[in-house]
């Protein structure tokens, strides 16, 4: 690992903050997509379909 000098705490803090934000966003986007897809699949499994059925699966 490189020597980040006397201001290492600011550099590491900035990278860690951005990493946490991005990973959190990825997790939120993926889980939200899965939750909506599961609810849609559950409704369709009950036989409730759009009038223009035949759309691609989530």
């Amino acid at each position, binding site marked *: 690992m490189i020597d980040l*000098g006397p201001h290492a705490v600011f550099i590491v803090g*900035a990278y860690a*903050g*951005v990493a946490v934000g991005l990973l959190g966003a990825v997790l939120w986007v993926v889980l939200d997509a899965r939750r*909506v897809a599961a609810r849609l699949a559950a*409704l369709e499994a009950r036989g409730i*379909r*759009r009038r223009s059925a035949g*759309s691609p699966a989530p």
Partner: protein
Amino acid sequence: MSLDVAAKRPNWFARLANPGQFLAWSRPLLWPLAGVTALLFLAGLYFALFDSPPDYQMGETVRIMYIHVPTAILAEGVYVLMALAALGTLVWRHPLADVANQAAAPLGALFTGLALISGSLWGRPTWGTFWEWDGRMTSFLILFLIYLGIVALWRAFDDPSRAGRIVAVFTLVGALDIPVVKYSVDWWNTLHQGASIDLMGDRHMANSMLLPLGLMTLAFGFLFLTLYLVRIRTEIFRRRLATLARQAAGATP
């Protein structure tokens, strides 16, 4: 009398943005986009942290630039995209335009927040302060608040079609802040430095710094694109879900 069949065929833009067709063409793109994003981040982080020199003035803290500048570019770029989507809602009443606005808003807010945090952590060792109420930082904080306002507006309405037009007007009014953010460093004497990348001017960055900055900007851009496509797909499915739920409620005796 003859029918012009070709004229009735939807043009490429209509096919691109039709919700049903969007779902079809976007699905096979998601994994390749995620792969390209991961590779770009690996390469960008390698050059940003291990194979680029310290700055002659800022020293090692220049490495914060490789995450601060891309997030700041996306903060402004995503808003421009949302403003175009708002025009699509108000002028052309395009079916996917308000979905495009709604899907982008939380991502834009995230990038703006990350640019503010990384900029603040860069400012402390460079300027001796985390924050200064100068033109660039203040207008950027206003951009963050505008994003939060748009996210809150979307959540305030049950019917997305009603929310769409109101949010579109709000988005276009908020777009006035974008040129202020962009040119604040030129209009006022700010603590914040001028543009880091000035391709047309005479300020040139060393290639050893331009490479990690370019790679990281591409990595953040591809990450946004990947998440954005997934968010748009999710919003389309969420609206279908709401329609089906109403349909199911109506069918129940």
